């Protein structure tokens, strides 16, 4: 029995009063299972193998540079007085930001009953976790003696006879990011249990069956299981929703509680959160657009899904633009010399190229998404979202480096130049991210099958409600 709307329909057009379908083609429940499972069950494609080899090589580069750093010391980086926070912190903030889309999609869009989240939430949540893993690497190695990073944990150290500095937002960060990572991981894993059970049941080889059997925690699909599952899911969503705000808020506190001009400004918390969602969605699109065609998921991840995500990018990009403008205006309005200098220096000082790259990529490029053509053409989406990613990396670079390089003491001023190790680590962190993502595509259910099926059922139900209504008005 077919429950869906015929293929070829443009589901980006929605007649008011009639919801556009989110699952396309002559798709049945069984087709959804087949479409998603074949991604993991068939032998890896050549493009996957090629992509994996490249990503894995980059990951090795990250590993080797970390080993070199630990062996030699943080002097291998470009961090110099007065720019003690160089690329490692830029990369940290960048990756934490990337990790915002997944939990926003799975928690906040769930609470807002946005049905379209169902086919993208799984992959986005996975990206969240991988991005947090990339992010966590940098402060871990930035402490210099990475083997003592556990001092960040709040316990009264017997060696030092002291507690971590609770008044420091850097410590709050440890809590914020680790809580976020934990809850995101739980959320992701728990949501996967029913689908892992499907994988288990379809396994033809003993080892796979055993592995998925362990992971699916004895899920039998009984209504009792489903009842518990749905309750737990809603609760976790409620817990995760404030975390979407808190993580980047606290990352913004790292800067904003200081007295450094250009850092100390009250709009930082919401502005950072908007920027994080902006960059997170951009990364999700950069990866999902090619992945959906490579893995044959076009009927489940439709143009409408991408259209919606592009709109979120447009909205958050505009919020970020408004924040840039507000900062500039208030720097002038406040008439505080240091603050004014910091902003003029950003735009017209030695880092002007970074500033204008940031503005072009973050504020101007997403404005193209006002046009439907740009929101619905896959290759254009990839290009724009890559620009957004570049822009958001530069945003953190501009914030960190421009303010620090022009300290209160002009004789200490310096220009930050990254070393080859900085470059290798940034590129290598993408290797970590892509390796994990490609493994996820091969080993885990990339789309939430059970929820997508319920979307399909609802789609069918709504279509029939409309039929009934039409029949009723005719009589």
């Amino acid at each position, binding site marked *: 029995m077919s429950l869906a709307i015929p293929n070829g329909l443009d589901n980006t057009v*929605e*007649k*008011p*009063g*009639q*919801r556009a379908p989110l699952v396309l083609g002559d798709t049945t429940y069984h087709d959804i299972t087949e479409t998603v499972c074949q991604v993991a069950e068939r032998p890896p494609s050549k493009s996957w193998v090629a992509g994996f080899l490249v990503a894995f090589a980059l990951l090795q580069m990250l590993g080797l540079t970390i080993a070199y750093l630990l062996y030699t010391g943080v002097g291998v980086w470009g961090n110099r007085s007065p720019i003690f926070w160089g690329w490692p912190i830029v990369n940290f903030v960048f990756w934490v930001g990337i990790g915002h889309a997944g939990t926003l999609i799975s928690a906040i869009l769930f*609470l807002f*009953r946005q049905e379209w989240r169902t086919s993208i939430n799984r992959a986005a949540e996975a990206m969240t976790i991988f991005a947090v893993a990339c992010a966590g690497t940098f402060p871990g190695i930035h402490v210099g003696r990475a083997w003592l990073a556990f001092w960040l944990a709040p316990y009264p150290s017997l060696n030092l006879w002291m507690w971590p500095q609770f008044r420091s937002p850097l410590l709050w960060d440890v809590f914020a990011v680790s809580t976020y990572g934990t809850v995101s991981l739980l959320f992701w894993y728990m949501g996967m249990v029913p689908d892992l059970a499907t994988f288990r049941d379809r396994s033809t080889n003993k080892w796979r069956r055993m592995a998925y059997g362990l992971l699916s925690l004895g899920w039998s699909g009984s209504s009792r299981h489903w009842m518990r599952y749905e309750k737990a899911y809603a609760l976790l969503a409620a817990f995760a929703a*404030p975390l979407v*705000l808190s993580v980047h*808020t606290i990352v913004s*506190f790292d800067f*904003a*509680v*200081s*007295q450094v001009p250009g850092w*100390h*400004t*009250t*709009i*930082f*918390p*919401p502005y950072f959160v908007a920027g994080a969602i902006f960059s997170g969605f951009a990364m999700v699109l950069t990866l999902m657009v090619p992945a959906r065609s490579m893995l044959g998921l076009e009927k489940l991840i439709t143009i409408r899904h991408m259209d919606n995500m592009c709109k979120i990018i*447009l*909205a958050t990009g*505009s*919020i970020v633009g*408004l*924040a840039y403008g*507000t*900062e500039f205006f*208030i720097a*002038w*309005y*406040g*008439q*505080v010399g240091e603050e004014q200098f910091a902003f003029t220096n950003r735009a017209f000082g030695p880092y002007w190229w970074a500033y204008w790259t940031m503005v072009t990529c973050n504020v101007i490029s997403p404005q193209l998404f*006002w046009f439907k053509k740009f929101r619905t053409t896959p290759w254009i989406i990839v290009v724009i979202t890559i620009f957004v990613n570049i822009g958001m990396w530069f945003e953190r670079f501009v914030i960190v480096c421009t303010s620090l390089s022009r300290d209160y003491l002009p004789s200490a001023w310096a220009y930050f130049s990254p070393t080859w190790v900085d470059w290798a680590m940034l590129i290598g962190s993408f290797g970590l991210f892509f390796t994990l993502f490609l493994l996820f595509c091969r080993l885990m259910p990339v789309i939430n099958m059970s929820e997508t099926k319920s979307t399909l059922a609802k789609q069918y139900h709504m279509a029939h*409600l409309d039929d009934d*209504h039409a029949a009723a008005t005719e009589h």
Partner: protein
Amino acid sequence: MSEHAPVVVKPADHEAFKLPASLSALGLPLCIGGAIALFVGLGLGYSSVSAKFGMSAYLTAFMYCFTIVMGSLFFVLIQHLSRAGWSVVVRRVAELMMMMIVPLAVLFLPILATLFTGEGVLYRWDSSTFWADAHIADEVVANKTGYLSQGFFAIRAVFYFAVWCFLAYYFFKKSTDQDETGEKAATDQMQWWSGPAVMAFSGTLSFAAFDWVMSLSPMWFSTMFGVYIFAGSILSAHCAIAAGTYLLQSKGALKDEVTVEHYHDLGKLIFGFVFFWTYISFSQFMLIWYGNIPEETEWFFVRQQETWVTVAFVLIGLHWLLPFLGTMSIHVRRKPFLVFCWACYILVMHYFDVYWMIMPEAYSGIHGDAYATAGGAIGVVSSLLCVVGMAALLVGVILKLATQTKVAAIRDPRFRESMAFENI
């Protein structure tokens, strides 16, 4: 998901969509009574306490109503932007409230008039002695007075009101015309325009916040201030929508259309925005407190003296903690009467928030006046008369307007969807 009950949409001319007679009868008395109360309140403050006090109380009342109205405008825009289905049955309440931006433009005139009738009656920057005594470099004074000048301030205000009145009128007209025509294209057009409208809204609201409230303390600045005003707006608007809908239902309108599900949703949003308001106000406070730079702490310093510190604690305890705990439970949110009570309660607390934003500037110790006692008993009476009067006046105008339209966007193509949706 439970089974749907059959959804029956009543014909557009049904009684359920008309403003109940008991409410429409209140329109004129509220307008007249409100105007008198506002006039007496302003006069009392102006003559018995001081011109500055009277005008500050008036500005407080104005900002209180203004934030609710702007929140309603945003509510309408965001529903169109997100093609929301759930909210259609309550959207007209917000649409009626957002139209109050037109009378508010008139009510802004006395505030504007203070700039031209005396030196620093309301805004300290509107006085040459303020700048002379401020011990500030000439260049800084030149820059500040370039922006904070009578003419430029007035031009900006006219511009903001022009934008908002246009937006409110456009979305109101389209929606009420749709009641007659049932034209689906109107929904498409509103959806299309909601994007640029939100952009125009956010830019102008931020700057209005800087101009009208932040500039009361001329040298103080906070980039978050626009967001802070917005947070109060969106919270109070959701409360006003819930309370307004409840009142309509209690008088017999929309009985079957607005269900417990809509209150549940409004309750969730109120809960969320209580938290959002707290998040924004705490972040603003914490960053300034932690940075401890005199140029910035000035604003909070004034608000930590004598009476104001009490108000600050009232805000923490009763604007955040109590409603946060109170609206958390599903059992509260699914009881329309309790949602109504919490909505009214938060609307009262919202006044404390606006009061705390504005009134300390009328009575700040920094410039030699006594620390605040809110102008004594007369001051309290005058402040209350101003806000109750202005709110009553606007509610009266809303009721007058509502007699000419329906109380729900009955022919919105998503009306059925809105009636049928279920939370659990």
